[in-house]
């Protein structure tokens, strides 16, 4: 006679408590979906930005890049710092030297003021800005500025440039309407490589 002796499939109590402990312990930072590695994002940005017809005039001799992170969000800060360091290693955007600064986001009005006063050329939004995307886009409209999103859904929410992975390949995303509002005009040869949102 076959002896099908039922046995425990899990040491339920031990395994589940470990899993719950992980969930509770990790509440300090929810990792958003940073799909294109920061190093590749930096590489793509330094190639794409000079194709903005207005980039040279906007940047002058030094392209100021602001990397915005969400306060009290470990994932956002970590991704932002990674991007900053990847960009800093490359030194220049096109032929223009760059200076990169990481700052916590303290609100759209403050951001607008900093961008205007510091003549920021590019503002990069790390992960976690889903809730603030619309107010940020409203605040940046009218400024001469390239806004870049680390996560793809923000391009539909009116960030000018973003990145996503499809079939394991990086893709560039552009919001043309917001680009016009921010005086960004990508050349045709690069636009045709991008996924366009109007």
């Amino acid at each position: 006679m076959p002896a099908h002796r039922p046995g425990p499939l899990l040491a339920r109590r031990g395994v589940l408590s470990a899993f719950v402990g992980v969930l509770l312990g990790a509440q300090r930072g929810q990792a958003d979906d940073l799909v294109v590695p920061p190093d590749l994002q930096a590489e793509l940005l330094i190639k794409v930005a000079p194709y903005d017809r207005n980039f040279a005039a906007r940047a002058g001799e030094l392209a100021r890049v602001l990397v915005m992170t969400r306060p009290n969000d470990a994932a956002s800060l970590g991704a932002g710092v990674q991007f900053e360091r990847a960009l800093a290693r490359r030194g220049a955007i096109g032929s223009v030297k760059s200076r990169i600064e990481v700052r916590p986001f303290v609100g759209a009005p403050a951001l607008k003021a900093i961008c205007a006063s510091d003549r920021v050329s590019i503002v990069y939004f790390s992960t976690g800005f889903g809730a603030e995307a619309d107010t940020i886009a409203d605040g940046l409209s009218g400024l001469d500025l390239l806004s870049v999103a680390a996560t793809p859904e923000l391009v539909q929410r009116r960030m000018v440039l973003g990145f996503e992975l499809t079939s394991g390949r990086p893709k560039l995303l552009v919001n043309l309407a917001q680009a016009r509002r921010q005086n960004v005009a990508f050349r045709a040869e690069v636009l045709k490589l991008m996924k366009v949102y109007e």
Partner: protein
Amino acid sequence: MRARTVAAAFSAALSAVGAARAEGDVVDLEGLLERPVVSTASKVAEAADEAPATVSTITAEDLRRHGVRTLDEALNFLSLGMMATNPLHHVEVGARGVMLSADYGNHVLLLLDGHALNEQLIGNAYFERGAGIPMELVDHIEIMLGPGSVLYGSNAMLGVINVVTKRAKDYAGARVIAEAELATSARAALGAGYEFELFGRRAEFSAQAEYFAHEGPSFSFGPQDYGPDAITGQPKRFQAGGEATGVWGGTARHQYYTRAPAAYGRLRWGDVELGLRASAYERGTPYLNYLTAPTSDFDRRDNRELDRLLGVDLKHHATIVPGALLRSRLYADSVYYIFRETTSAAENCPAADWLSGCRRRQTNSSRWAGVELQGSFDWLQDGRFTTLVGADARLRHVGMGQSIRDNASDAAVNVGEYVGTDRYAGVYVQQTLRPADEVGLNAGARLDADQRFGSNVSPRLAATYRPWRGGTLKAVYAEAFRTPSAFELNMSDPSYIIPSPGLRPEKTRSVEASIEQRFGRHRVLFGAFTTYWRDMIGGRTLDEAEFAAAVERGELAAEAPEGFRYDNIATIRSYGYNATFEGALVEGRLRYALNLTGAQARRYEAGAPASRLGGSPQAFGNARVSYDFGEGLPTAALAARFYTAPLAAGGFDDSYLPQAQGQLELRTAFTGDVPGVPGLSYRVTANYALASHSPYLAGPVQYKNGDPAQPEFAPVDRFRTALGLQYVLPP
């Protein structure tokens, strides 16, 4: 005037240089956008050329363009370094010149979104319809060649295949799919993908369910003159009624079929992800073969196999502090397998008075559950010095047994019964270091502790160097292993086989080096490798002393003609190369690729001369080209796959290894949107195989007309055409 002219000329020259530089940058940009990002080799996202292994990817677009329907088709027509052969079910996969026939896929680790599909009794994985993976849901397939146990543990010896499914953004809306292969199969599917908010957090799901059914075609076999039944002395029966002729063969009209319902879905809510998988795989194979049915009557519909599979995977990831990411995963799977066959021959049955033959019912069950915790620490927060540590623990409950009943009296015997529960755990660490932008180093090791055999360490060392723009030099040393399966350890039947405790794990080590050059949208790669396999498990005959001891222990019947057991009996050495040339032209409309692998592999066993591996071709590859005409016109694609003539596989007699045919298979596909009907798309394919037979020997004698010089191989369905329609309702 002159100064103005010079200035104008200088400005024009600068513009030209700028334009030339800009054009070069566009080429660079196009190349960057073609650079695959993979995660299988290191369990972190990285560019494929920086990964510590040779990794190739097959995109959803590739699958669509070339009308690929199953994983084995994807490997054959689109991959580098791996190939599949199909003995009319139980597709077998090999890589880099090594195909281990009758291993049931247990030397390749198959993952679905990182979830291992290899079951835990035999280590079996399916690469055809039985995988239960709806292809429209596939985002891309990552194929990592060579040993992968450093992060994945057992089974990852030939490589790791990770099928990654689409996010909702790439599978948006609801869809209905209908497809038919004329006039043998049909498939219907429903799928959906949506993004939404749930309790203030982003959520999404993507899922597809489908039903595939196939019948025929009919195939002709034999005649194979077997001769008399060893019990009755009369010509052996291969069918229930009619005259017993001792001859096997005829036209199999009823036994080649498939029924494969499958469903897979993923739900993501914030940082939590739930994956659910369910499938069944019922099939009949129309000939006697070593892999599944060694003793069946000819062309019986009720000779069949059925798998039922369920799987669940719950994941969570979170950043604890900047640079420190924690991932956790709970998983559980259940696989239940039934094999039925009926034989009308007395000699195939366990009792000498079962003169009308008997019917067998083999059942295997495999259930397992586990937890994996993984932490990655980017110490400098710039990707240059990163540590990955992880632990994976699993509880396995497996069982098997065979019930054999007399066709006449319904008396039954049960053999080969085993039920067992065991534990398995692995801990791994991986350190990556980038001392300079051009240099990457990766070192890792995994310690596995398994109740089935003890413990094992699998190391890996890899270095990448990018000396010039677009160029990558890579060197990798890696080891891997396969746990002796519960089947190999415990299979017993007093009529012929005893349990085999004390089996050691199979091991392999590999050294490879490659050079890759990217230039714009094009890529060339050449790599060379050598691998050494030891302690390969196989069956061997018991000697006289072992036989007597087995009889004394009660494990073997004294009247058994021979005794067998599994043992670590062989080594394999192989060396060879992989090469690929691929790219895109005309703004990506024209895409092409050529993949080629050449290898020499030899098997060594005590007391036997070195031999080639049955079923392993010494060269194989594929080529493809496609053009997207755009503007409402279809995408036309042509692909070819080939392998050079291997020795036969699937033989009952290890010494009978006749030369089999090589193969050249052509596939043409036209895909596009149906004009005037938004959301409706079509796919038309035609497939033609030049060789009429596979390398798998067929039948009880395995050669025709009593002549070993006329080996009988399983046929190939040479010409197939298919039409598919997909209708997508936007979200």
